[in-house]
């Protein structure tokens, strides 16, 4: 059962092409990992799927939960069950984490969560993430360390219970302990009804999360997909060989 199907997705920023034809299908219950060198278009893919206004889709089609994703506004995508854990979460002064979580939950689920039960659930999830409850009354991401911001993203994921969670470099800026806590939580949140797409260039996270499929993204295209052994191949050979593969592919095309 498909959660998302991406066909030949191409995008531009200020007239320069970034995504050059992405094809990717993710089914229920699957965890996918996209790896690739800096500048390959990994974060762009995440932002395009979420609907970032500065990315223009020039070609392609994305079907999410049976609907045309590219036709939806950003908030509608979230309501349909898409979630993005941001690489650089925004600071929002004056808006507490608690208020933000409840508002988001209300919007995504369509019903105002019961205060006491909601707070109880959130506190449980915070404790799993090794986050102090005091963060609930802090302003959203303001003055948070890099690691706290990322944990706060995963907390939002846990609260909103999306169909597809895209984690954009969630490991960057985290120390080893935090990476373990974050990915163990993500692994726990994975179930047979949802799917997770992890974007990273750091394959150590594969110690904590077990993907079903690994993709290599180079220069705006997925050049190779495979199982966990592909990650090991990257570890040994680096991305250079995949870049060459891309050149060969474009030559033969």
């Amino acid at each position, binding site marked *: 059962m498909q959660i998302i199907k991406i066909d030949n997705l191409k995008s531009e920023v200020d007239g320069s092409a970034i995504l050059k034809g992405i094809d990717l299908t993710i089914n229920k219950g699957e965890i996918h990992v996209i790896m690739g060198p800096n500048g390959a278009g990994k974060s762009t893919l995440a932002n395009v799927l979420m*609907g970032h206004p*500065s990315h223009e889709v020039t070609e392609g089609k994305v079907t999410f939960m049976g609907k045309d994703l590219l036709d939806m*506004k950003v*908030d509608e995508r979230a309501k349909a069950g898409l979630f993005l854990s*941001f690489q650089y979460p925004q600071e929002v002064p004056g*808006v507490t984490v608690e208020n933000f979580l409840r*508002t*988001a939950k209300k919007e*995504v689920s369509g019903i105002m969560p019961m205060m006491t039960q909601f707070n109880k659930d959130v506190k449980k999830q915070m404790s799993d993430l090794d986050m102090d409850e005091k963060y609930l009354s802090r302003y959203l991401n303001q003055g948070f360390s890099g690691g706290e911001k990322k944990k706060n993203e995963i907390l939002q994921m846990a609260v909103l219970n999306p169909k597809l969670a895209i984690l954009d470099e969630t490991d960057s800026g985290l120390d080893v302990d935090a990476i373990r806590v974050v990915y163990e939580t993500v692994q726990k949140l994975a179930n047979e009804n949802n799917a997770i797409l992890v974007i990273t260039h750091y394959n150590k996270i594969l110690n904590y999360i077990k993907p079903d499929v690994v993709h290599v993204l180079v220069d705006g295209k997925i050049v190779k997909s495979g199982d966990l052994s592909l990650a090991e191949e990257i570890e040994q050979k680096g991305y250079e060989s995949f870049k060459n593969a891309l050149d060969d592919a474009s030559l033969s095309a």
Partner: protein
Amino acid sequence: MAQKTQIEEVDRGIYDVINPENHRFVADKGLTEDIIREISREKNEPEWMLEFRLKSLEIYKSKPIPTWGADLSDLDVENIVHYVKPNTDMKHSWDEVPEEIKQTFERLGIPEAERKSLAGVGAQYDSEVVYHSMQEDLIKQGVIYTDMDSAVKQHEDIVRKYFMTLITNRDHKFSALHGAVWSGGSFVYVPEGVQVELPLQSYFRLNAKGAGQFEHTLIVVEKGASLHFIEGCSAPKYSVQNLHAGAVELFVKEEAKLRYSTIENWSRNMYNLNTKRSVVDKNGRIEWVSGSFGSRVSMLYPMSILRGEGASSEFTGITFAAKGQYLDTGTKVVHSAPNTSSIVNSKSISKDGGHAFYRGLLRVTPNAVGVKSTVNCESLMLDNRSKSDTLPIIEIGNDQVDIGHEAKIGRISDETIFYLMSRGISEAEAKAMIVRGFVEPITKELPLEYAVELNNLITLELEGTIG
């Protein structure tokens, strides 16, 4: 004084309901000596007040319209009826207030607020205060809370000692006009050592078309006493330009504390040219919380004169300028005694071509050593048609001071909107959340019902511009 109160939410629609005009007495348009005499006779005032009014009229006629700040060239002062008296006398029970006027206040939620939480309420409808009450025990402690017109007669000694001594009729054209035609307003006297635990509140409303509002508020907080006074204002929309030139004089004595909170929400044709001043004695404290919404033009700079050693002031202000609005607001602090301290926190929001101008003055006299002061101004523009300016004037008369100043001007960030929307929040609500967050440091200074009203006002101001 951190008492939180609960009130029903206020709907913007009620501000725009216009009642039929039904007044006993309407002064002729324009301003003459005869009109002043008529106002004074109608009020049955003592002779000295009439003389004061006539003197003020003379000064008013001799002073030019100010040419700095807002453009007042469209303001036709001759065409504004200066005094309109509603067809009722002051009542002490809500049931006795005429139905139509009562409904207006009911719609604004005033009696409910009073019943639920406030120590006393004075509501001004056009020029006269129609309803007044105060808790019994405060009366027993000697606290006086009444309308200014009654105070002139019943507490003549106190009024005469303080009235227009802090804001004089020579200060500027509109203070002179105020001196000539002032009517209504609140008078509060808190005797030495009395702590008024719950806030006192008054609510102003302009209803008659083209009527100016010239209410006078005089508050005296004696040695070691404390008070929180709240004023709320709203006016329905009219096509004729309205003028508001009120005066607020606050006297804070030694070791006394006064917190003065206002949320002003005027109709979009209003010229709001208000003067507010406080003078603070040794170790006394004045706290201003000031919200400026609505009006076509506002010029408002509440002033704190710290004249006693160790006196302190804190100003927290929020200004929201939308389409067609020019709001020139800020605060003035004069440190004229040693070891005085002040904090200024000002936030402004502009959208749809609105213009928010912060104009502030911080003055330290040569003898005032050991002064500490922090000034923070932040502006948020919601689009690139809107304008924001900051003009903080700092005059320091000696070098033994500790002054900090920070000003920030910013635009609402697309990245932040995207982030909030990615969590299912609509664009409109995302913007509202960012704006509410921006003003949160001010909202939290307000009693709950005003915080709710402030948030509602922001939501209403944001409506119609987002789509």
